[in-house]
C-alpha cells in the first residue's frame, strides 16, 4: 500500500488516516535482558526488501495499532491485524 489500508475495524481507509510507527516484528525484551538485546530492539532493523510487518495506527479512526504485513517493494498489503490480537497470538 501507499494509498489505502483496510482497517479490520473500520474498513478501507486512506493513508492519511494513519500514522506509521515502524517495525512490528520487534519484541520488547525483558527488563533483565542483555544490553545487546535492548540495543537491537531499539536501534536495529531487519529492513527487508519484501515482506515486512509494520505498525500503523489508525489515528483518525479507531486509534488501534494495526500490524500491516506489507511488501516494501511492491507496496502490496498481505494482511492487516489488530496489534493487540497480533501481540497475543505471538505470545507477547
Amino acid at each position, binding site marked *: 500500500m501507499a494509498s489505502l489500508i483496510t482497517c479490520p475495524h473500520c474498513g478501507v481507509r*486512506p493513508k*492519511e488516516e494513519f500514522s506509521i510507527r515502524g517495525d512490528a516484528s520487534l519484541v520488547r525484551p525483558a527488563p533483565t535482558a542483555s544490553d545487546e538485546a535492548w540495543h537491537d530492539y531499539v536501534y536495529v532493523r531487519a529492513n527487508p526488501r519484501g515482506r515486512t510487518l509494520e505498525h500503523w495506527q489508525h489515528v483518525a*479512526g*479507531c486509534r488501534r495499532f494495526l500490524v500491516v504485513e506489507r511488501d516494501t517493494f511492491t507496496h502490496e498489503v498481505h494482511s492487516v491485524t489488530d496489534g493487540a490480537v497480533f501481540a497475543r497470538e505471538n505470545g507477547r
Partner: protein
Amino acid sequence: MIRDYYNRHALDEKLRGAPRPAGVNHLAIGHRQAVAMVLAHAGEEDTVQQVLSSATEFTVRFSAPGEWLVVSESDTSEGLQRRIDAFCAGRAYVVDQSEARVLFRLSGPSTHRILAKGVGLDLHPAAFATGASANALCGHIAVNLARTGDDTFELIAPRSFAESLFDDLMAMGREYDLTAAFAG
C-alpha cells in the same frame, strides 16, 4: 442550580445573529445533546455491544473495538450516564463527553457530494448504509461519521475543532448553497 451558569456552545460566535431559513442542503448544529464514551471492561466487549444495540433510548455510534459514542438528544448528561450504567451494569466505564463533542447534521440531496470533498470513505449506500457509523477523517479533522438516512449524515467532532470543521463544511457546501443554523 447549574442554570445559573451560561453554557456556551462552541459555535456561538459562528452562528450569532438572526437564524436564516434553511436551504435545500442544510447543516444543523446540535445545540444540546448528551454524549458519552462507553468503554467496555476487558472481556465484556461483546456483551456491552449487545446491550447497547438493544437500547432505543439513545443512539450508539461505533468508535473502536469495545468503545462506542452514545448520543441522546433528550437526556441530560447525568441522565444518560445513569441510563447507560443501568444497561451495562458494571461491564463498562462511562465517560461524559457531552461538553467535548459538537454534533453536525447535514441533510439535503447534495450531502453525499459535499462530504466526498472531505471524507475518503465510500459513501455509496451499498458501502455505507443508513445506520452505519465510524470514526473518519473529514479534511484534516477526525470525526465520528454516521449515516442517519439516504441524504442525512451526522458528524460528531471534538469541541476544540468545531469552528474549523464548521468552516470546512461550509466551504465544501458552497457549490450547493449550504445553509447552517442551530438545530431547532
